[in-house]
């Protein structure tokens, strides 16, 4: 997209928009395009997954599954620690956690203390983290349990042992969702830029 700012603008003191303001808005950085390193459309960025499981064996296993699938992994051994990590434990408020970039949370269902279901609810109650997809894992195929989790907003319910194919499928669908979100954002920026350009034209700049 090329935007020509005519040199006749500078000679028109009654212009509606200052040349400086326009130049500001149309700079690529302001349009959040090329330097947006948090966007996965810049393809080399890794998905950051938070995995929660009280079983040491399962933690080691899921960590490996995720690493093999090119994800950055943080593993914790309880729902309480997960909440601490996310800053949702009421200790610190959510100050400083807005920059924490988690793309997916995978949690075991049956854990002592707080269950994965309770963790799911807490995450969905959080204004910062409610958009993050939460996947529940369980060794038991109990339909009412699955329904309850999906109703509470779980992205998916996986039976243990989790397969590499499950993780790949999750990752692919997340990447697609991020790509769509990125494209929507770009489209929105384009419309905004077009809008400004039209206003410029009308002001006969």
């Amino acid at each position, binding site marked *: 997209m090329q935007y020509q700012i005519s040199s006749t603008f500078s000679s028109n003191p009654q212009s509606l928009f200052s040349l400086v303001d326009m130049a500001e808005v149309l700079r690529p950085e302001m349009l959040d395009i090329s330097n947006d390193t948090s966007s996965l459309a810049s393809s080399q960025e890794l998905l950051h997954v938070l995995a929660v499981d009280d*079983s*040491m*064996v399962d933690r080691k296993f899921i960590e*490996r599954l995720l690493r093999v699938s090119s994800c950055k992994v943080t593993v914790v051994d309880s729902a309480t620690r997960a909440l601490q990590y996310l800053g949702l434990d009421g200790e610190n408020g959510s100050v400083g956690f807005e920059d924490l970039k988690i793309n997916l949370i995978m949690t075991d269902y049956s854990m002592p203390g707080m269950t994965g279901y309770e963790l799911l609810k807490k995450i969905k109650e959080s204004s910062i983290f409610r958009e993050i997809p939460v996947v529940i894992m369980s*060794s038991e195929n109990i339909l009412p349990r699955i329904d309850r989790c999906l109703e509470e907003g779980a992205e998916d319910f996986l039976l243990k*042992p989790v397969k590499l194919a499950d993780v790949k499928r999750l990752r692919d669908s997340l990447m697609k969702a991020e790509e769509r979100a990125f494209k929507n954002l770009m489209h929105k920026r384009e419309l905004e830029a077009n809008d400004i350009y039209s206003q410029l034209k009308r002001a006969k700049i």
Partner: protein
Amino acid sequence: MNTIVVGQLQRQFQDYIVSLYQQGYLDNQFTELRKLQDEGSPDFVAEVVSLFFDDCAKVINDMSTSLERPDHVDFKQVDSGVHQLKGSSSSVGARRVKNVCIAFKECCDVQNREGCLRCLQQVDYEYKMLKTKLQDLFNLEQQILQAGGTIPQVSMN
């Protein structure tokens, strides 16, 4: 590299691991574990199973304590232990251990102390047996690597 020796070791390895599957010690999940191992993480399987065996020892010990006094059995604790063992054995492909856990859970559900004690003994036996077998398997792997060979990927169809 002595290709004859490597070839022999690889065949030995292949036969041994196939026999473990055929005798029901291992199931497909163990194959999945092996797929996750590579040059970057050459000890992954050994590390996971080591964690599993440590888990077994601890949980079995705790359950043994809970089952000790006939008049005072904490079946909730035992049930929790069985659940944990069933989960971890399932995650590593320890088929026989897992199967004992299934029977164990049933005894627990009906609060059958005698049945639980039998299952406890059995699960202890099975995990120790598997530990020995896998140690032999890992030793074979080491021998192959030291002889300059690569470890065969074995597919069980």
